[in-house]
């Protein structure tokens, strides 16, 4: 089928009708170009939003204590709810389905110093699991472990920014050194990096929650309980939250429907919303893109119709010499496929090129970064193109196959 003769024939007809072929090809190239650009922009938006989600597992749930806003069992509003280790323990034992769970204590910024260097950093006492919930990226040493909690060890995991502030000049090795936190010595056992662009996230110090309660607080209060919902579906995650609420409302005697007694931030919900939004956007983009390509296909089909009309006599000659209808169909279809694929490929390359250029030269903004058309999109587009060419060529080819040689060869 792909014999050199056919290529020569396609080449010679294209050669004879350069402008016509160019205009046809242009409409297809434009269609693909727009599709790639749209898909790239879509992925740029998506990447931008994904960036917003960084610094925390996408299936995380954070429950913080607040103030009651509803009267309940004769108790007045405005009561401050105080979580304790007991709350953490009962959620840990009664709610199932989570894969990581941690309590946190909010102590605010504390003075941290090493030799003559010092700074004020956010102290974040927590359980070892918090490393998974917050997706803390350890670049040196380790995160907290259960022994740290059990033995009230005075160990600290410091952010990169903390490290660069405290360990300067000739003394840049932080691991194993002792830093003073509010006057108490803690040994640095790990350094982490936080990928979120929020500067504060980099200026944190993680310490064991048990140690913090004993050293800085003297009681068993916690401020937040967080867990990840594992492979749970949105409904299952909702159920886990409901269960946790029930446990807490019972322990602290508040209305389970009181949304201000405790604050729940369910990232599953956000992620689900954004996923749905982007699925919608992507669908929309494909519809528009395919619409544009269809316009191109109609153009190619139109041109091929004219080509068939112009070549009626030639087709008649071929038939009289023994061309089967199928060989005529193949001839026309192949030409259509070649024009669309070639033009489409140019559109593809230009589209991807422009995306690359934008990606390289445009600073990533809050909601738009790294527009890209990935490999699967290129493959899809290529399949689409060949299909488009085949569709564009089909009707003209059928028309060509039906050419009656007697009429085609009749002398004018």
């Amino acid at each position: 089928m792909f014999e050199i003769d056919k290529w020569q024939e396609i080449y010679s007809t294209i050669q004879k009708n350069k402008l016509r072929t160019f205009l046809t090809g242009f409409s297809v190239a434009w269609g693909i170009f727009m599709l790639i650009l749209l898909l790239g922009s879509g992925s740029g938006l998506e990447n931008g939003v994904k960036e917003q989600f960084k610094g925390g597992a996408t299936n995380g749930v954070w429950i913080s204590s607040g103030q009651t806003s509803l009267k309940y069992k004769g108790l007045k509003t405005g009561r401050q709810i105080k979580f304790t280790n007991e709350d953490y323990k009962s959620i840990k034992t009664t709610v199932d389905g989570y894969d990581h769970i941690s309590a946190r204590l909010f102590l605010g910024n504390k003075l941290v110093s090493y030799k003559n260097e010092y700074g004020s950093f956010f102290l974040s006492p927590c359980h070892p699991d918090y490393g998974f919930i917050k997706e803390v990226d350890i670049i040196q040493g380790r995160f907290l472990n259960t022994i740290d909690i059990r033995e009230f060890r005075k160990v600290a995991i410091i952010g990169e920014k903390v490290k660069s502030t405290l360990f300067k000049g000739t003394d840049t090795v932080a691991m194993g050194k002792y830093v003073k936190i509010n006057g108490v010595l803690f040994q640095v056992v790990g350094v982490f990096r936080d990928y979120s662009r929020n500067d504060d996230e980099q200026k944190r110090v993680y310490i064991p929650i048990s140690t913090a309660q004993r050293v800085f607080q003297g009681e068993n209060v916690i401020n937040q309980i967080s867990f990840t919902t594992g492979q749970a579906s949105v409904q299952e995650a909702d159920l886990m939250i409901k269960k946790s609420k029930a446990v807490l409302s019972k322990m602290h005697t508040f209305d389970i429907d009181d949304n201000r007694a405790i604050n729940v931030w369910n990232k599953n919900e956000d992620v689900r919303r954004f996923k749905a939004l982007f699925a919608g956007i992507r669908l929309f983009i494909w519809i528009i893109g395919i619409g544009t390509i269809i316009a191109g296909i109609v153009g190619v089909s139109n041109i091929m119709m004219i080509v068939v009309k112009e070549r009626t006599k030639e087709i008649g000659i071929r038939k009289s010499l023994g061309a089967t209808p199928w060989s005529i169909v193949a001839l026309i279809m192949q030409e259509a496929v070649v024009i669309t694929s070639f033009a489409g490929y140019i559109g593809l390359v230009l589209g991807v090129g422009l995306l690359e250029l934008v990606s390289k030269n445009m600073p990533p903004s809050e909601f738009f970064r790294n527009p890209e058309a990935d490999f699967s999109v290129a493959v899809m587009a290529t399949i689409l193109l060949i299909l488009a060419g085949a569709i564009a060529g089909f009707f003209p080819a059928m028309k060509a196959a039906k050419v009656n040689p007697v009429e085609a060869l009749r002398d004018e």
Partner: protein
Amino acid sequence: MIKISQIHKSYVTGQNSLHVLKGIDLEIGAGEMISIMGASGSGKSTLLNILGILDNYDSGEYLLNGLKINRLSERKAAQLRNKMLGFVFQSFNLVSFKNALENVALPLYYQDVPRKKRNIVAMEYLDRMGLKDWAHHLPNELSGGQKQRVAIARALIGKPKVILADEPTGALDSATSLEVMDILQEVNATGITVIIVTHEHDIAMRTRKTIRITDGNITEIVSN
């Protein structure tokens, strides 16, 4: 070689039906050279189209080399045309964007002969027509006589049993007409049946038998 009996053919256009062939009986032996004459509209071209399996007939029987030709699929008809028949037309009907060599080689393309071999064979046939030096010229660079010789070479390359020529000299001056007739006679001398449709008496006289058609009937068969 060709045997037709009681062939009828009508063209229906809307409400009107035009009865073009009204029961033609004809037998043409292998290696014969005959001419079909008749006024325009007499049905001679329709008869040639039916003989060339380019058109169907309504009733009757057509045997080509012993094979019954009746409402064949397009594919089968194309294969038979390719193997059994060669066409020569008044207006040459060469493919304009292909050079002489490619035009001659075209029937072999539909026989799936490899390109190299095709071109060698085509060159032989062009050489026989005395057109070796014109092999790479496009049709519009050739004279009328040369074009017709290319067309004859193309008709012959598939080694057909029958050559069907529709007014082969209609677009040529008398000197080149004679040349073309000489070639057709040479072709016939190799044993190929030649059927020529013409309205020129001189041309008809060069064949061995003349069949005259009037209003869809054979009215006269004359041996020349």
